[in-house]
């Protein structure tokens, strides 16, 4: 099988891909080898803090998952498994969750982990002085956290909130050492203390973050690796070259054109099971984009097949909704409301009353996929007769400016979440904490709140389908493509697969010699 692939690559030059399935090709009989260093490439390092209470940037997540444990952990198929919480039960119609914690867990500074620490951690998330990035999401949900026993903690909620478990598998569930926080104060972000398999050894901003093995890790026998180093590389291609010489083991995210360059003797390309959702967003609560016909008109002017072809070699999926059309438990079939049609676009533009001489600013963030999307969309809108100016913005400032509402019309992207509420409510509810479009549809709000209060999976999935249909009529975003993203890994890497939410969790990984 491998030889066949290699010949194809030699024969056809750049077009074949040494792609593997998402699941490890090597059977599980290999025993993990201890030791070694895992080098992960980071492109455009945006890491600002290693304090999970304050963390916003995606880049920080993969480091955080090694420094800290969460109460629960997410599997590659989005199911949940215990981590710091051994078992849990849901009571009172979903308004009370009781967690039994692992015994004998210590923070990296030697202080014990217990129910009191969990209570403290959650209260930190809710404390207005801390200004946690998770506060807007959790404050309305959590009424109180009580210590039932030294290793048993209960969450009392104001209303049923099914995505609590998924949230506790992410930043909100990362347990920070209270003693450590007290000791370091405002500098905790650079001196993290958790319970995780690795400790921070060195952090040279913009160059590398080095983590070293926690010898007192509570999971016996883990971790296998001695060190994990996150190295900033200026671009993906250099990262690929360095896999070839053994300096780097993981590079992501990569597009199909970049994958063409890999050397199959040293590198494997793994496709993400679910692509990132790419879309255009705009502020629909004020001019110019509060004009629904204008939004529809612009949607008709965009050639999404072409974008898919140029950005993802045609391997992405055209998105006509917020989720993929299949593959996840809450996926719903698409009901498209627009196609590429420059004539229809022009007709709708006339109907919308838009003044064609007025310039439209489309922002062009510096990251490769966003930037290319902007340029292509700009080209297509210009072809439809609109006056478009592209406004560059550095990627590290991008999301902050979107939140500040300085950036209006721009490409954007989101990864799928373990619980659909985390994306749907987050983006589309009028009070959603990620709602930067100003979208407000009372029917959508009602449906989203309803979906929160029931636990039956099929019923919830149906409701999200209805939300998606409304979404496609209102177009607070123009969905473009579910990307074909790849991660290139060294052939020496074992026991790691990319997750559909695109967060890398390297805890159990190991390397052959």
């Amino acid at each position, binding site marked *: 099988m491998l030889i066949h692939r290699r010949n194809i690559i030699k024969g056809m030059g750049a077009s074949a891909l040494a792609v593997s399935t998402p699941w490890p090709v090597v059977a599980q009989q290999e025993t993990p080898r201890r030791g070694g260093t895992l080098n992960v490439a980071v492109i455009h390092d945006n890491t600002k803090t290693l304090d999970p209470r304050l963390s916003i940037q995606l880049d920080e997540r993969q480091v955080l998952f090694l420094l800290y444990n969460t109460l629960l952990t997410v599997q590659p198929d989005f199911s949940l498994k215990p981590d710091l919480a051994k078992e849990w039960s849901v009571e009172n119609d979903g308004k009370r969750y009781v967690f039994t914690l692992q015994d004998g867990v210590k923070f990296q500074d030697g202080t014990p982990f217990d129910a009191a620490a969990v209570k403290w951690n959650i209260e930190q998330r809710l404390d207005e002085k801390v200004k946690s990035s998770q506060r807007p999401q959790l404050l309305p949900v959590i009424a109180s956290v009580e210590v039932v026993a030294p290793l048993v903690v209960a969450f009392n909620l104001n209303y049923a909130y099914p995505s609590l478990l998924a949230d506790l598998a992410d930043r909100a569930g990362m347990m920070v050492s209270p003693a450590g926080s007290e000791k370091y104060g405002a500098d905790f972000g650079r001196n993290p203390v958790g319970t995780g398999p690795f400790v921070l050894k060195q952090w040279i901003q*913009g160059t590398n973050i080095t983590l070293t093995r926690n010898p007192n890790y509570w999971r016996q026998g883990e971790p296998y690796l001695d060190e994990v180093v996150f190295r900033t590389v200026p671009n993906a291609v250099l990262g690929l070259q360095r896999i070839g010489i053994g300096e780097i083991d993981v590079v992501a995210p990569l597009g199909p054109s970049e994958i063409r360059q890999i050397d199959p003797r040293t590198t494997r390309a793994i496709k993400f099971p679910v692509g990132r959702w790419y879309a255009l967003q705009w502020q629909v609560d004020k001019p110019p984009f509060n004009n629904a016909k204008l939004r529809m008109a612009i949607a008709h002017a965009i050639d999404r097949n072409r974008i898919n072809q140029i950005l993802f070699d045609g391997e992405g999926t055209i998105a006509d909704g917020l989720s993929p059309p299949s593959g996840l438990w809450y996926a719903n079939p698409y009901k498209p409301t627009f196609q590429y049609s420059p004539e229809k676009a022009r007709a709708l533009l006339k109907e919308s009353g838009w003044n064609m001489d007025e310039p439209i600013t489309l922002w062009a963030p510096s990251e490769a996929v966003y930037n290319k999307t902007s340029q292509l969309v700009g080209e297509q809108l210009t072809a439809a007769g609109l006056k478009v100016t592209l406004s560059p913005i550095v990627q590290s400032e991008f999301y902050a400016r979107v939140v500040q509402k300085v950036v209006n019309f721009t490409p954007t992207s989101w990864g799928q979440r373990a619980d659909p509420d985390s994306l749907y409510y987050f983006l589309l509810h009028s009070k959603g904490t990620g709602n930067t479009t100003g979208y407000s549809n009372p029917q959508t709000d009602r449906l989203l709140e309803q979906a929160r209060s029931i636990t039956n999976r099929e019923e919830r999935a149906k409701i999200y389908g209805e939300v998606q249909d409304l979404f496609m009529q209102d177009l607070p975003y123009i969905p473009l493509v579910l990307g074909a993203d790849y991660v290139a890994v060294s052939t020496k890497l074992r026991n790691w697969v990319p997750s559909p939410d695109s967060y890398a969790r390297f805890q159990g990984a190991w390397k052959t010699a």
Partner: protein
Amino acid sequence: MIRFILSRLAFFVPNVLIMTFLLFAVLSGWLGSPASMMLGLDASPQAIHDLNRLYGFDDPIIQQYGRWLWAALHGDFGRSFATQQGVTSMIADALQITVELSLWAITLAALAAIGLNSLGGRRLTNFISTFSVVCITIPNFMLGATLIFVFAIYLRWLPTSAWVPWSDGIVDHLLHLVLPIITLSAFYFGSFSMIYRAEYRSVMNQLFVRVAKAKGISDTRVSLQHVLPNSVLPVITFIGISLGQLMGGAVVTEVVFSLPGIGRLFVAGIRGNDYPVILAVGMIVLTGMMITNLLADIVLARINPQVRLS
């Protein structure tokens, strides 16, 4: 001599204060405030107003300058808006790298220019004068790209880029610096060569040199012992003047090779509208250059008495 130095120093401090204030005013005062610089020109007035209050941008410029200067003199340049890291430590880390790169580059350029032009035969020196034109006109990014392609990608002799600290191995550290040093020093090799050649030729024609040759002393010895010491002066002066320009070259070179020096820090600060970083690096570069100009003036005066009297 002392009087000369003192008179220069007397003007130096006020000059520095005025220039740094101007820079501060330009960065802070233009277009309303750093708030609009940070948020972009289309920001809502409310957002700008709030940011102004938060950072004290509403106060009079002199007051802001004073505040900044006072903190700076105590070693506190504030915190980067982008990374929340202390700017002082960011600069300290980056400065070491730029200084090391620059020292290597200038030394290499000077030694190569002076050495090759003194010892080389006619053909070599003619080639160098043509080559110098290329050296001073080729942009750093093009030279860097070419070197990377030839030596790192095609021949695979050297790594493409990135910074490896001393602590990770001297050989590795130096290997990663070879291409950046060559890139940065090219311009100076060209200019040093041109300046040195011109001076060299005029010294060669002087009487004492012809006498030495007539006495039968070998060409090499004449070159090294008699001509070189007398023609080096303009090169040294040029080094003094060009230390400021070196920063400009370093900026592009560091970006090409991904070296985390001051140049790259500055560019990142500008692209991200990171006001404290832009301010701190700008001021430090400005002050540094005024200091080197002053020192160059003094050295020049020491060597050339005519300057002192003017």
